């Protein structure tokens, strides 16, 4: 028994296998190099490495196991990853296929800085072949990987979504690509909860006396949300924290707020999930002050639209000051009977921030404007 896992986060697959006590060797194909359209897939492969069945029934398995091809034993081979410097050299003048292959290898085998080169290569390949959905998908996976690394740049997550969406526009029947967007998107577009099993897995593994595998990136928000047929706006009856706009503004000098809009993959749907990523600008001295209260975000949906929550909260940590990134998410959609139109969503964040790790601490407001534009097949945001 051998496995291949198609997953952006292989550590989550490790936890899953530990939970289900699946102990066979597994390889990781985060880019879907095999170009499968959906999972799970079971394949029977004989001793000579020939594919005997790609969709076996129980009767196929019986025949497969009882066939008497000689067992040749495992071929002796040593897997050697490509030479990274050689890849970079060959990609300098390569065509789109060479550029993408080089970028794939840099993603699989390179170190953090190699993600930058991989992203450049994918962009160059796309310039040559703008209609290649596979390159767009791989580029999205790489942007997301860099977003989750210590080399994260502002806009990486938005770029990931942009290129996944472009890939899906090119091939709307690619369900692996569709699932990658739905993982972060609105509940009305989810086929199932993606990672709601994690806490149950940890509990059951611990009950067996084992230590659950750690996850460098915890699934949160959309990744653990359950599907919903409608937008649940029941929790919008709350008090606006600064209705008279009296709190002094931070014009973005201490806290950076990134906005990432994840549209529904259904082109007829106007629902979207908005991710607000708030990061202290430490080079300007910005730090969260955790001694007073959490970070809050207030959302004003435009007329004819509704959100699942108007007031969002991002808790702090135990330390008095900190510089971690904080994430809040909300969902928006048109009210029943209202047409979808281009809109701008107004809101603001309220936070306790210090001008340095040991400096003056303030209570500040930063205004937010999220523009959603609906071209023919997809939503874009600014």
């Amino acid at each position, binding site marked *: 028994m051998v496995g291949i896992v198609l997953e952006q986060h292989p550590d989550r697959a490790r936890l899953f296998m530990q939970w289900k006590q699946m102990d066979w060797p597994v390889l990781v194909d985060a880019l879907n190099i095999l170009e499968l359209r959906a999972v799970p897939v079971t394949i029977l492969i004989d001793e000579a490495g020939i594919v005997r069945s790609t969709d076996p029934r129980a009767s196929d398995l019986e025949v497969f196991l*009882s066939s008497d091809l000689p067992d040749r034993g495992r071929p002796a081979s040593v897997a050697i990853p490509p030479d990274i410097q050689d890849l970079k050299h060959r990609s300098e003048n390569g065509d789109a296929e060479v550029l993408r292959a080089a970028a794939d290898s840099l993603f699989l085998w390179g170190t953090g800085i190699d993600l930058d080169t991989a992203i450049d290569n994918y962009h160059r390949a796309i310039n040559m072949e703008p209609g290649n959905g596979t390159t767009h998908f791989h580029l999205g996976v790489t942007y997301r990987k860099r977003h989750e690394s210590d080399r994260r740049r502002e806009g990486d997550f938005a770029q990931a979504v942009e290129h996944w969406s472009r890939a899906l526009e090119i091939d709307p029947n690619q369900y692996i690509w569709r699932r990658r967007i739905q993982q972060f998107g609105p509940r009305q577009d989810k086929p199932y909860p993606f990672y709601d099993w994690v806490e149950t897995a940890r509990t059951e593994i611990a009950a067996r006396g084992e230590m659950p595998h750690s996850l460098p990136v915890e699934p949160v928000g959309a990744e653990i949300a359950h599907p919903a047929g409608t937008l649940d706006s029941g929790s919008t009856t709350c008090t606006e924290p600064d209705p008279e706009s009296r709190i002094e503004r931070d014009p973005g000098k201490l806290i950076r707020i990134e906005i990432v809009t994840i549209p529904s993959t259904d082109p007829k749907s106007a629902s979207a999930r908005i991710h607000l990523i708030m990061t202290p600008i430490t080079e300007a001295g910005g730090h969260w002050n955790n001694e007073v209260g959490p970070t809050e975000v207030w959302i004003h949906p435009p007329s004819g639209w509704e959100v699942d929550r108007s007031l969002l909260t991002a808790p702090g940590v135990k330390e008095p000051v900190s510089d971690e990134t904080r994430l809040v998410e909300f969902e928006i959609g048109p009210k029943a009977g209202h047409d979808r139109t281009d809109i701008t969503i107004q809101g603001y964040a309220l936070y306790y921030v210090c001008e340095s790790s040991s400096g003056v601490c303030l209570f500040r407001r930063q205004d937010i404007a999220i523009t959603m534009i609906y071209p023919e097949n997809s939503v874009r945001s600014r």
Partner: protein
Amino acid sequence: MKSQILRVMIGAAILSAGGPMSSIQAGTAIQEGKPFPDLTLPALEDGRPRSITDLLGQKTILHIFASW
């Protein structure tokens, strides 16, 4: 008994891993009667490179899945 055990393993793996369907895209490198593509991918256990052919050479049930 071995075939019964393997049937149970396949069933358990498929049910556990979720996902709505099983689908090989026509025209991909995975085709009945042809060699499985020789790829080198990171091993889940330690991230080290492993070739698919390292893991073949005897009757193999290959299960491709995701935890979501």
